[in-house]
């Protein structure tokens, strides 16, 4: 237990894994290169040294195998925390995740539980080659039986992982890899925010920006600039993408009457679509403008020299804010 004034997200996740492993011998970490190397992002750094090869497992290079065996271990009473090396490499495991992990609890009429957490570093802006910068979150959020969460800061990174590991449901935990080295505060003794509740990250009155993971920071910058221009922007950090906390969003929009949703994932069928649909239904008579969305394009994630254009950034979000306010 400790209070960190500044800790990176990567280190907060490491701390969270360590805490969970200390607390419960059934918690395992598994994935490619998670052992000696400590993962390609060093998120599992030192864990194998301290907990041994039996609990921090370097696996064969086979994602379906990793998730499939994690399911088996969960059936035996373990609580595996699986690392997928990069967003673009989760797809070989997709069948196990969708047809087995997500559905097995229901298939068994609740008689077995699948406490498996799948950690996936996701998102772009790290100058990487193909498959290393994607945001596939809706491909999991659409699937019943999975919970999908993503932190935007170190405290959430720590706590949401604690909660995910402690829970009895399969959780896809998306880590905003471009923010791994961003530092913020963490109090490991504080009372955590409920796992699936959104958080108003900044209060405002003219417009709501909804974002999650790596885009929360962008929205904070937007709000700052907008404030300088005299526009009061509220930010809702969604934190959970399945379920989405529509109540918090609704309260915010009932106040601001305008909503812009921001994510790196392609706009088409992105989380913003669901939010727009549902908030429009819930706030039909409150909205002064249609819910606008800023996100990736309907194109493969581009070569890194183009990613600044592909990703929502300060200007593009500000543009959407202006368009919304223009209604």
């Amino acid at each position, binding site marked *: 237990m400790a209070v960190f004034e500044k800790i990176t997200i990567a280190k907060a996740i490491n701390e969270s894994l360590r805490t969970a492993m200390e607390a419960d011998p059934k918690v395992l970490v598994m994935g490619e290169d998670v052992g000696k190397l400590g993962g390609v992002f060093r998120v599992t750094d030192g864990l194998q040294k301290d907990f041994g090869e039996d609990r921090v497992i370097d696996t064969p290079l086979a994602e*379906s195998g990793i998730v499939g065996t994690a399911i088996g*271990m*969960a059936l035996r009473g373990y609580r595996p925390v699986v690392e997928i090396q990069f967003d673009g490499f989760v797809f070989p495991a997709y069948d196990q995740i969708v047809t087995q992990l997500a559905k097995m609890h*229901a298939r068994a009429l609740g008689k*077995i539980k699948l406490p498996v957490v799948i950690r996936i570093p996701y998102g772009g802006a790290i100058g990487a080659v193909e498959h290393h910068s994607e945001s596939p979150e809706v491909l999991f959020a659409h699937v*019943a*039986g999975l919970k999908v969460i993503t932190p935007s800061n170190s405290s959430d990174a720590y706590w949401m992982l604690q909660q995910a590991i402690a829970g009895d449901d399969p959780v896809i935990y998306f880590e905003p890899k471009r923010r791994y080295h961003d530092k913020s505060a963490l109090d490991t003794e504080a009372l955590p925010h409920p796992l699936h509740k959104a958080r108003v990250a900044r209060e405002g009155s003219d417009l709501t920006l909804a974002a999650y993971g790596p885009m929360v920071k962008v929205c904070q910058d937007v709000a700052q600039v907008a404030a300088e221009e005299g526009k009061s922007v509220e930010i809702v950090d969604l934190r959970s993408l399945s379920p989405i906390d529509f109540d918090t969003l609704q309260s915010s929009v009932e106040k601001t009457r305008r909503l812009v949703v921001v994510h790196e994932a392609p706009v088409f069928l992105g989380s913003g679509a669901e939010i727009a649909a549902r908030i429009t239904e819930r706030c039909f008579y409150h909205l002064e403008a249609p819910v606008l969305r800023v996100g990736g394009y309907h194109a493969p994630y581009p070569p890194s020299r183009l990613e600044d254009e592909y990703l929502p950034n300060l200007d593009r979000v500000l543009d959407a804010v202006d368009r919304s306010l223009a209604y």
Partner: protein
Amino acid sequence: MTVDSSAARKATRGSGKRTTAKKAPAKPRAKVSAEQDPDQFVQLLTPEGERVEHPEYAIDLSADELRGLYRDMVLTRKFDAEATTLQRQGELGLWPSLLGQEAAQIGSGRALRDDDYVFPTYREHGVAWCRGVDPTNLLGMFRGVNHGGWDPNSNNFHLYTIVIGSQTLHATGYAMGVQKDGADSAVIAYFGDGASSQGDVAESFTFAAVYNAPVVFFCQNNQWAISEPTEKQTRVPLFQRARGYGFPGVRVDGNDVLAVLAVTKAALDRARTGQGPMLVEAYTYRMGAHTTSDDPTRYRGNDELLAWEAKDPILRLRRYLEAEGMADEAFFASVEKEDEALGKRVRDAVRTMPNPDDMAMFEHVYADGHALVDEERAQFAAYQAAFAEEN
């Protein structure tokens, strides 16, 4: 030999509770079916019901145990036939028959200890029987009232898995857990000849080998994957697949309950004594359609069927029991009576199986709840209520 021979010898005397070795059967003969390379086809009982010996795999069962195996196979077949009939009558939506595979399933199922764990496909009705799963429990998913729903941990028998091959990874992971626990239980993963092509099965071989997990891969090669013959999946015998992953594979006469029992026990004991995984290919035949939805006349002839009928697993054990004077008319009559009783019980159970409540579809989606499910459940309830009012 296809399997490490000292290990196999050591392992022959397994600790399966239901079929503990007792005394040698009479008149073992050295004859082996000519169909296969004898080194690659373990057989202990010929189609004619003659006991033969195998250099690596021995078995030693009492008359009581042999009668027990016979009874298991007959009742399994009965249950299966009953289910097929119930499907015809519209009581079930679908039924995948195990007809012809009784020896493969009873032999392997009876090799298990209670603490072993089974990961079946959708056709392991005989294995379920051995595990003590009430056969009527298997019918729910085929009637459409649930997707499985028995408690896997009650009998260490996992739910049926329909997505081909997936369960081999679950079995391997479970076995890794057993290993971590320091337990001496073993795990068995069932799959078919068709499944052998799935990447998941290959990955399970890799994981099992690398971690030396106590898992037995039990492949029922019933010659067909729906309409595709085994040649569409492999050009060499499937048991050979294992060697390339660093563990032994063996082919056993899958219609010979004694051989299957002996080989599976050896494999399980290998696993539980830290010697790692093994692949058992039970060479058998799917006598019926793939499922009640299938029409096998479109893709296979009758000759094949007739040839395999001559190798019937139940018939050969009966011949042996009779020849050895280990079972009399009274015994066969008592099995027949049980048979009828089972049939009736299954029919009654199915016909009185309650439909699930409408709201059940919102249950168990999550263990810890989910706001969206709660919202949709409430909306659905309100809609139903309003609708009921209206009508």
